[in-house]
């Protein structure tokens, strides 16, 4: 199974979600001048949403910087988006933006740091998903 790359601001919600999932995960740092992870294998991105009421600014700048590199972008296979349903139509919008830009599926949406149910679904889902990805790329 390949790994996860994730961004989490200092509120730590996405970091707690990824930690609860377990497994290998590389973090995109909050500091804009920090070195970026350089994944060598296909990965799934876990990304929170920071959209305003109109949906602008959904994807954190740090994640844009990470994906602006074609090599890294070539390895992304799916996105799992964090958010809060209380933001209405823009709930987990970062997932939709990244999916469209990278031509990859939104694998899952979760709120804040995720629930027990979310963790179980994503663990099972990732196992199945990586199996499918291996079959299609073999």
């Amino acid at each position, binding site marked *: 199974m390949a790994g996860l790359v994730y961004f989490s601001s200092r509120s730590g919600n996405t970091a707690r979600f990824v930690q609860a999932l377990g497994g290998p995960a590389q973090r995109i740092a909050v500091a804009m001048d920090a070195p970026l992870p350089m994944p060598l294998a296909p990965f799934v991105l876990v990304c929170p949403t920071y959209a*305003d009421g109109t949906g602008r600014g959904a994807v954190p700048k740090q994640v844009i910087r990470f994906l602006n590199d074609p090599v890294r972008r070539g390895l992304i296979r799916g996105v799992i988006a964090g958010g809060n349903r209380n933001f209405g139509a823009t709930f987990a919008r970062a997932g939709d933006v990244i999916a469209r*830009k990278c031509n990859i599926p939104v694998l899952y949406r979760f709120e804040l740091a995720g629930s027990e149910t979310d963790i179980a679904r994503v663990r099972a889902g990732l196992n199945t998903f990586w199996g499918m990805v291996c079959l299609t790329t073999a």
Partner: protein
Amino acid sequence: MKDIAQTRPVPRAINWNRLQDDKDLEVWNRLTVNFWLPEKVPLSNDVQSWATLRPEERELTIRVFTGLTLLDTIQNTIGAPAMLPDVQTPHEEAVLTNIAFMEAVHARSYSSVFATLCSSKEVDQAFRWSEENPHLQAKAAKILGEYAAGADPLKRKIASVFLESFLFYSGFYLPMYWSSRGKLTNTADLIRLIIRDEAIHGYYIGYKFQRATETLPETRRQELKDFAFALMFDLYEIEAHYSEALYDGIGLTEDVKAFLHYNANKALQNLGYEALFPPAACEVNPAILAALSPDSENHDFFSGSGSSYVIGKAVATEDEDWDF
């Protein structure tokens, strides 16, 4: 002159170009972009729909809205200002004053709904009810106790997050329920604007709480966590009684309680804590979830609804259009 200079800190002008915490500007920007007033929502389009509600449903709705008005009033005049002396940055002070003002807008909005839909007699009765209802008064008293002068500033933040992210939801349930049945849909639009604001408030205050506690000794952190869970238990008990008193009549209490459990867990997550209620207790009616985030994309791969997705092997975007 010299004495004054020694005893009083130098008044400092706020400089938004020198941030100690980027989150302050991020949240300030989000709150100001999201600014709204009730006049923006065409509430009068709900007049016909209001007339289709039975008298007891109308009474319930007005009571629920007076209960929400009370919480907004408390947060506007006491809760948010009470956190000002304990800020960690000058920018946090500015954000808190924005939060305080928006709570006044929220409280004012319910009166717009009343003025549009209800008779002043019905409304006066409901305000009287809000002053006499023991459960509503109990939750107000519990929160105000934590806001009181001399109270622990970190426990004040905990109480504030619970007000913003938990206590409103026994009330927010009802307009989401009406909206899911195609009723009072404009009022629901207004409530969604309030819900959006409260989500940012709870997130931000919870974030500042986490920042303030990360350097504290373990014993103090544990004390705060024990306090938070104990306060949540107490508030939950009050909320359960409050919900029964309001919703037993239309048979929705159990549905409301699932929504309370779900929101209690989210409030705890805002403080950086784990969930209290197990998943089985948090299965919110899907119609209510859909009413919370209408038009949001809900099909995803792992939930099974996205099985027709084609997995893209190569990435087709150009670098230029990615630079957004």
